[in-house]
Structure formats: C-alpha cells, structure tokens
C-alpha cells in the first residue's frame, strides 16, 4: 500500500468550508483521511511523511482553458510539455481546447488526446471537443458520442460561434445531453481589424480598436438563446464591466449561465500594451483599468465563476512582428496561481474565492471528481507557499513557448508541491 502523510498543513478547501491546520493522508492515489486531529498522536513509522510547514494545502488547481499544439503544431507545445508547465504552476488538471490541427471534432480524436495524455502527461488532461465541425461554425458535432467518449464541454475554442441559428440549435441539442457549451464571446464582424482595446490608448498608438461591445453583444445574444433552450452556457472569458453586469443580471434571473476570466485580464490592462508589446496582445484584448477592476469585483462577488490561464503558447516568430501582425495569446500555466495571489495580497480578492475559482468551481462545472478535499476523492493536491517572493525568468518556464506577459515581473507566492493522484509531479524548494 502506497501511503503518504502530509502533516502540519493549512488544509484549505472552499467546497467544504475547511480552513484548519491538520494532516491529510493519501492512500493509493486517493484522499484517505484528513483533519486537525489526524496523526495528532504522531505519524506511524512505516508511512512516508511530508511536513508542510504550515503552508496552504488546497485541492489541485484546475485550468479549464489551455491551448496546446498537439496535434499539429507540436513545436509550440505538446500535451507533455503543457503538463510539465501545469505541474510547475500547481495545476493538477488541464482542459485542452479543440483548436488543434486537426480540430478535435471526432470521437477518434478525443481518444487520441486521452491516449497521448495518458502516455506523456504528468497531470490530468481532459479535452473540450469542438462545438462545430472544424470549428467552422456551420455544423454541430456529435455532442452525445463525444461526451460519452470523454469530452467535458463543447466549444470552438478561440473562435466565436457567430451564426445565431447554429448556436440556437447547438444549445437546444446539447440540452438533452446536459452538455456545457463554452463560447468565446466576441462578435467577429464588430471586432474586425481590431488588435487592441478600443479607446484613447489605441488611438494614440495608431492601432485599430476592438470595442468591448463586440463582447457584450455576443453575450446578450447568446443569453436570449439560453432563455429559449435552457442549455448550460459558459462564457470562456469576460473582460469588461458591462459583461460582468450582464452576467450578474442573468444569474439573478436564474439562467444556467456561468463565466470565466483569464489571469491576465485580472491583473493587467491596456496600458501594458504601450510600446507595442506583442506579448500583451490577447483575444479578447486587455481592457481599460475600470474594466479590470470590474472583473476582479466579479470574481470577488461570485459573478465570475472560474479563473483560467488561457495558456496559448506562441513561438517567437509569430510574436516578433509589428503589433498588428503579431499572433494573439500568452502562456499562463505557471503564472495562473501567482497572478491570482497578487489580488489576494492586494486585498481585492478573498483567498477563499480565489481558490474556489481555481478548484471547486471548474470541477463542478465540468463534472470532475476532483476540486475538493474529501475522503475518497482523488488525491489531486497543491501545496502553496503564499508569500515567497520571486522574479519570473521566461527561460525557466517549463512551457515550450516563452511568450509570457509577466516577463521579469516580481511575483509573490507559488506552488511548492503538486500532487496528481497521490503522485508528486512537482516539488520546489519554495525559495
């Protein structure tokens, strides 16, 4: 029997309202027991023991928006390298997007992702399948068969599903299967040509703006369709104040709607683009500071359910270009936790909400067994040093791509141990 005792840990689990110092026993990949009184009389001799030094032991983090390059563009990222990066960031489960080459829109491709993940990844990997074939926005995919094969949700990834009739039918069809539909909410026509947030700064820089209305119009439209169909609908990333208000109202009206926000949108704003930094070029774009404050508040009050990395590895050739021509996206697996903790340290986000948005919320949205510290559930755990200061060195990132917007940034707090199914996949000194 494989048994490990984690002692002297601050057991922290928003799902169970748990915040106490105690121990946790991992047995054969599962949480066998936990609590303040566990091992109060000492740990048995035959057991491997990890002294957590009073650090935070939380459910393993779940990142429900990760792009990789496998299959198709493995030079950017493989499932294996993404999992290494996730483990280093304290993430025990990644949900990979279907925008690969080929697009994950067929049962055989879901099987491929699962097999490659089993053989090469050190964290849990679940695919979201495409909502439409080839993510082309025209024909819905086999939602029933794909869900049975293991797809945890359905999305066209970084592409919005524009056609309202296709969206309506997809929502309507998905309802029977209780499938979660995830939308990248941006009206492509309205955002056409835009490369950064529309506003004064874009005008000064001479760059074409993408208005936040492109996001709100799409969300408003989709909510009408959710009202018609009753399907579960999730906005992958909300980035502006108006979107937060819309979702808050929809939730008050009882619609089955949820949403996420990326760590960069919580911690950076359009001013970071200044001097045309293409690593700050995201989709949707970094917004005005007022919008950033509104999304932070949205996470704090529960309007925004989950925080994601939106990890999108890009090689230097696609980023070292004039801003307008550079690719969108930033790597984020290793900065998801420290970026979120910066809000906790700054006093704008409670620790409980932060951890909930990184664990319990995505788990319940996606129907995963993990995401909480409960006897019998998988031993997916993250040990966090809340306070350790460090400077991000892009060369030390485990990801194959180094396009991080937090280049050289001073950060506080990181994962010092990552445990997946009872197995330690990342250990750092926490220095």
């Amino acid at each position: 029997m494989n048994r490990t005792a984690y002692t002297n840990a601050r057991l922290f689990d928003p799902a169970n309202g748990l915040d106490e110092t105690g121990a946790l026993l991992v047995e054969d990949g599962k949480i066998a027991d936990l609590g303040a009184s566990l091992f109060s009389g000492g740990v048995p001799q035959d057991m491997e023991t990890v002294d957590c030094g009073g650090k935070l032991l939380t459910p393993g983090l779940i990142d429900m928006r990760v792009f990789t390059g496998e299959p198709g563009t493995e030079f950017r990222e493989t499932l294996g390298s993404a999992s290494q990066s996730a483990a280093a960031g304290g993430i025990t489960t990644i949900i990979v997007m279907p925008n690969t080459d080929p697009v994950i829109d067929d049962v055989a491709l879901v099987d491929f992702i699962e097999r490659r993940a089993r053989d090469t990844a050190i964290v849990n990997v679940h695919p979201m399948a495409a909502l439409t074939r080839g993510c082309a926005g025209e024909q819905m995919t086999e939602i029933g068969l794909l869900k049975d094969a293991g797809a945890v949700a359905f999305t066209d990834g970084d592409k919005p599903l524009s056609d309202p009739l296709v969206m309506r039918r997809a929502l309507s069809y998905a309802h029977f299967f209780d499938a979660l539909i995830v939308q990248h909410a941006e009206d492509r026509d309205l955002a056409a040509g835009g490369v950064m947030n529309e506003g004064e700064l874009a005008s000064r820089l001479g760059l074409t703006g993408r208005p936040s209305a492109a996001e709100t119009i799409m969300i408003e439209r989709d909510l009408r369709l959710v009202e018609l169909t009753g399907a579960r609908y999730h906005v992958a990333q909300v980035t502006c104040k108006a979107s937060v208000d819309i979702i808050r109202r929809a939730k008050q009206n009882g619609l089955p709607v949820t949403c996420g926000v990326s760590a960069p949108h919580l911690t950076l704003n359009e001013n970071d683009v200044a001097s045309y930094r293409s690593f700050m070029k995201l989709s949707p774009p970094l917004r005005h500071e007022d919008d950033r404050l509104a999304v932070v508040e949205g996470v704090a009050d529960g309007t925004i359910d989950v925080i994601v990395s939106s990890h999108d590895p890009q090689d230097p050739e696609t980023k070292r270009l004039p801003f307008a021509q550079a690719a969108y996206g930033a790597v984020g697996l290793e900065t998801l936790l420290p970026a979120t903790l910066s809000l906790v340290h700054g006093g704008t986000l409670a620790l409980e909400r932060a951890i909930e948005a990184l664990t319990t919320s995505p788990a319940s949205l996606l129907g995963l067994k993990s995401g909480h510290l409960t006897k019998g559930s998988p031993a997916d755990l993250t040990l966090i040093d809340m306070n350790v200061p460090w400077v991000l060195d892009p060369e030390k990132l485990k990801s194959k791509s180094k396009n991080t917007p937090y280049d050289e940034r001073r950060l506080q707090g990181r994962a010092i141990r990552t445990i997946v199914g009872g197995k330690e996949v990342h250990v750092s000194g926490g220095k």
Partner: protein
Amino acid sequence: MTSSDANPTPLFPHRHLIGIEGLSQADITSLLDLADGYVDQNRQINKKGDVLRGRTQINLFFEASTRTQSSFELAGKRLGADVMNMSVSSSSIKKGETLIDTATTLNAMHPDLIVVRHGDSGAVELLSQKVGCSVLNAGDGSHEHPTQALLDALTIRRRKGRLEGMTVAICGDILHSRVARSNILLLNIMGARVRVIAPKTLLPIGIERLGVEVFNDMTEGLKDVDIVMMLRLQLERMHGSFVPSVREYFRYFGLDYEKLKVAKPDALIMHPGPMNRGVEIDSAVADDINRSVIREQVEMGVAVRMAALDALARNLPNEQPAGYGA
C-alpha cells in the same frame, strides 16, 4: 334536387378532406368503418367497384411521391373512376404559372376529385378555394397528411381493436412532419394518449400545447407504450444542422431492440415510409413479423383512400345544375 337534400345526414359532411383538424370523432369513425369494407374488397380476386364510375379524379403532385400517388391512383381505379396523374415538374413552375392558375386550368376540365400534394403548408387549402370539385390533401408542407393518419388509425384499430386509451409514441423529426401533426390531431380526437420523442432541435416550439407529452429520451418516452410510430429523418436534416450525424442519431434516437425493451411486449411498430434503415430504425426491428406492421400500413392506405374518395364523392352533385354547359 341535390344529393344533400336526398341525404340530410351525409356519411361525411365535408366537401374537402384538407386535414384532420375540423373532423369529429364520428367523421373519423365513419371513414374507418367504410375503409374496413374496402380492405375486404381489396383482398378479393375481383377488386373493381363502380361507385366512382363516370367520375374524374386528378392526382396533382407538386412534390415527388411514389407510394402515396400510386395508392391514390389504385384507390380511384378500384372505385371505377377515371384517374389522371399530373406531376407538376419544377420546369412548369419555372414557366411562371402560379398555383391558382394551375387550379383554374384544371377546374375547367371538370374533374370531380382532385388529390393534391404540395411542398408548402396551406397550398392545398388555397387550391381548394379555387375549384368546384372536392379536394383531398395528400400532404401539404409540414402541415397535414390526413389519409396517412387515417390509415395509421385503421391499422391500429384492426390490430388492437380500438384507439381509445392507447398510448402512442411518435418518434423522430416531429418538426418537419405533416404525418406527426395529423396523427397527433387524430389520436387526440379518438381518445388515445400521445407522446412525442425527439431531440429538441426536431421538436416544434409549443408542441406540448397540442395535446402531447414531450420526451427527449427514447427509453423514458417509450415506457409502456402500445404503439411506436417512427418518422423518417430526411437526409438533408442529418448533417449538422438539426442533428450532428446519422450514427449519433441512430445511437440516441433510432429504434432498436434495446430501446424497445421498455415498451409493452406487444407494442406495434409503425413507419409511414420510406424508411431509412439504420438511421431512425434498426433493420431487424423494421422486419420483425411479430411487431412491425409497416407493410400492413401500405395495405390500409389503399383502403382508407378508397373510403375517403367514396365519402367525398357521395356529397358531389349527381345532376347537372340547371343551365350548366348551355
């Protein structure tokens, strides 16, 4: 003196058969009773009758049809009528003739009965307003297909002895189906309990207000039913617009023995045809001699159409109106 004066309570007090809507329980029962007799006649060596002798029947089909058109043709001929088939090709529509022009042209040829199929809902009713004879609807758009509902009812009544109290599940593409609409109406009038089972994308909005119980899950909807009516899923609706694929449709919404388990052990399986084997129905189920009555439905079709033609013809004037043709 007209025939209606001679017969103050006609068997079927309607000039046209446009839909099940507007028919009474008595109307339907009369047609089914009449059809029962024609089933017997059709099983004789000499199948020819003469109640429509001298009458002209035009089968006007704006939409391609094999079985309905031949069924109506045979029905008319067995009753002694002169039957003419007109398939209005798309080319003559391209020539610019409107539906009403076609109707008035035909009307000038003095037909007694016109059987019409048209791709647009409401087209048959429009045509019926422009002609002097009786019109039978052989299917209009997604609206009604009354003789199909009547032949289904006849099939059930002959097998089960009654319609009242039967639980009937209609499964598949309800949204585009005129067969479903006519059957829902008829079965409700006759006191049967009707369920519809389909993916939400193939259910019309507000269907629950038409007197049906709505299900998305076959194994829930088929529980303890007496009759399973499968509908044809048209190919152009399979590939991603309403349902993702044929294989997914068959997996979750196709009728196979596994899903049929929850129905009553003596539940009948029906299909208006033509079938897509392996799409909405498993081949073995469709051919199950103990359960499937699909071929019987075709036989009932001829008898029901004879009954409908006969009943309408009884209301036609038997004498030339005064001054007519002068």
